[in-house]
């Protein structure tokens, strides 16, 4: 095939019927302040880990909410737990406990079976 310089974009549709939202319910039980997140991105802007690698808490929370399990797993272990996001978050999301909650949920849902 000749290369015309552009590709067909990957399908970005999210199928809620297929995505398990198990992680989300686990996380919400552990740290209910996940409901408060407005995806403003302040946390990602200040993130220590984000300075070194492609990691954003805003995105991670969205992925959890959407049940994109695989992507959650690749991103969930990059946080330094430094707590900057917690002080920056305008909504009072308890981010460090939230991240630990996501990790716990991943541990439970993916490794337990």
């Amino acid at each position, binding site marked *: 095939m000749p290369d015309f310089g552009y590709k067909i974009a990957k399908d970005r549709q999210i199928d809620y019927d297929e995505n398990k939202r198990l992680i989300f319910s686990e996380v919400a039980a*552990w*740290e209910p*302040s996940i409901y408060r997140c407005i995806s403003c991105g302040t946390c990602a802007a*200040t993130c*220590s*880990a984000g*300075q*070194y*690698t492609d990691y954003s808490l805003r995105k991670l929370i969205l992925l959890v909410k959407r049940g994109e399990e695989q992507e959650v797993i690749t991103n*969930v*272990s*990059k*946080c*330094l*737990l*430094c*707590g*900057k996001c*917690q*002080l*920056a978050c305008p909504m*009072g*999301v*308890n981010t*460090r*406990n939230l*991240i*630990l909650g*996501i*990790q*716990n949920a*991943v*541990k439970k849902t993916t490794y337990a079976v």
Partner: protein
Amino acid sequence: MLFDWFVLPFTLGLAYLLVVVSVKFYCWIKALPYSEKQKLKKAIFTTKSLISFKEIVMESLLHRKIFKVNPLLGYMHMSLAFGWLLLILLGNLESRVFNHGEMGPPYVPIFFRFFNPNPTAFAFHHQFSFIMDLVLVFVLSGVALAYYKRLNSNTLGLKRITKHIPADMLALTALWFIFPLRLLAESFTSGSLGGGSFLTANLGNVLNSFLPSEILYYPFWWAYSVSLGLFFVALPYSRYMHIPTEMLLIFLKNAGIEEQNSHSGFTEVELNACSRCGICIDTCQLSKAAGINNVQSVYQLRDIRYDTQDLNRSLNCLMCGRCDTTCPVGIDIAGIRQIKRNESAPGLAENYTYIKPQPVQHADVIYFAGCMTHLTPSIKKAMVNIFKNSDINFWFMDEQGSLCCGRPQLLAGKNQEAKILMQKNKMAIEQSQAKALVTNCPICYKMFHEEYKLDIPVYHHSQYFAGLLDNNLLELNHLNTSAVYHDPCELGRGSKVYKEPRQVLNSIVALNQPNDDGEKALCCGGSLGNVSISSEQRTLVTKQACDTLLQNQPEILVTGCPLCKKTFQKVSDTPVLDLAELVNNSLISRKQKPKPLKKLEKIDQVLNSLVPNQTADLE
């Protein structure tokens, strides 16, 4: 031989107690790490044992530290512990004198009046009866206070008292009955057979006037014996295990034994030495300000002792260390909680492979700002300005990417992750060949100071400024304002740095004294140590701490920690400044000075003048 069936509950209970306690002690000492066992061996036949003995008398019997918390509470504990011991000792003496030096079975002194209701035949019997009655009054007054404490704890200085588990309730009830039953048994005996002194004889007469003493006294001796036996059987499983364990703990501590990184025999001793007195509940700001009443040390230690603990509870603690400083038993609560967190590290192992080696720069002094300082840029600017002003060849290590010092991971129980970060930072520090590391963040300071094991000294900026001031390398204007200083937990209780910040501040502002100061300073509520508290609850803690600090209406609230600053700023109308900002504001520029010192000479002078990692007490 003197014997009656009713002595059995007491005798069997006592035998059971002695066996269980000995076995427990043996197992705990056996479970000490090797290094700690060696320490114990070395200490046993030295003056340390004498010191321990004195401490046992002062603390386990007289409860000196509880007296300091509240005299009435101290009296309650003392009358029970010391009074009971007196009863036993004097009872022994009495029965020895009576039996011409022979001891007889161990229950005889306890039930002396039953076996010798009216011992007119022996010398000093009046005096003995009198003293025994007196001591009984002493003990009973303690029991009365204990009843009263359950109803109205405020009078004894406790706003909240411990909620107890069944084993405790059983032992407590038995204990409450022991002395009143003894009183009644002795009174009925003297009512029907004579003997006794001012208390038992008189009460016996009164009771005898409307009750059949001669029938009643025997069942009451039974009841007394049963309550003693019950107490002894329940003791090892209840909080009263603290009575024997506290003594062991004093010995171990004086031998230099301390908590390690994991659960050891010493941890068990500490857990069992907690008397659940509940003094730590009122000290904890989580209960005082935020209405969280189930996570305090007393419950944590209990959970760990009975292995019924949930992770969320152990993560819900500010790690502020206030309870450690008030615990009358001197338990290393923070150490035990940290062990618990280490054991049940939440979440998954982190993957930090994305962090590449840090760029390095040669310098004399490293300045490490830390994550929290990056959120308070004014502190960062002030620090850089002060460094520049004193012409010091410094390297701002985390100016670009800010790599965490590792303390937040450590506090969450993620030791492996902390180690990875420490290793990366340590490499950069060593390569820079710096002679000292300065940080303005107490969290980083504690970490670098205690965990990194660096070859160079680590200074909190307050120590560094104090050193510069001492050597006339820093000149500051007095600002003519008043300020109050807030001791950050990690710097004050955590690293025992109290003196230097005050020394620096005294040359800039008029310091006023808040209510809780120094070792008793409140936590700002922002602590990274607490993972699970909600932001609203945090704010409650912060507000209360802020109100306490601002009581005397100072013009500035100063602290030595970027996290404290950021936290207080949310609730305070009074400006909140870091020490660095204040120093920077009052700095007399060196540029106007005639001849600055030569660079290298000066840095050595500064560094030599600072006592490495000095820890100082409050003046």
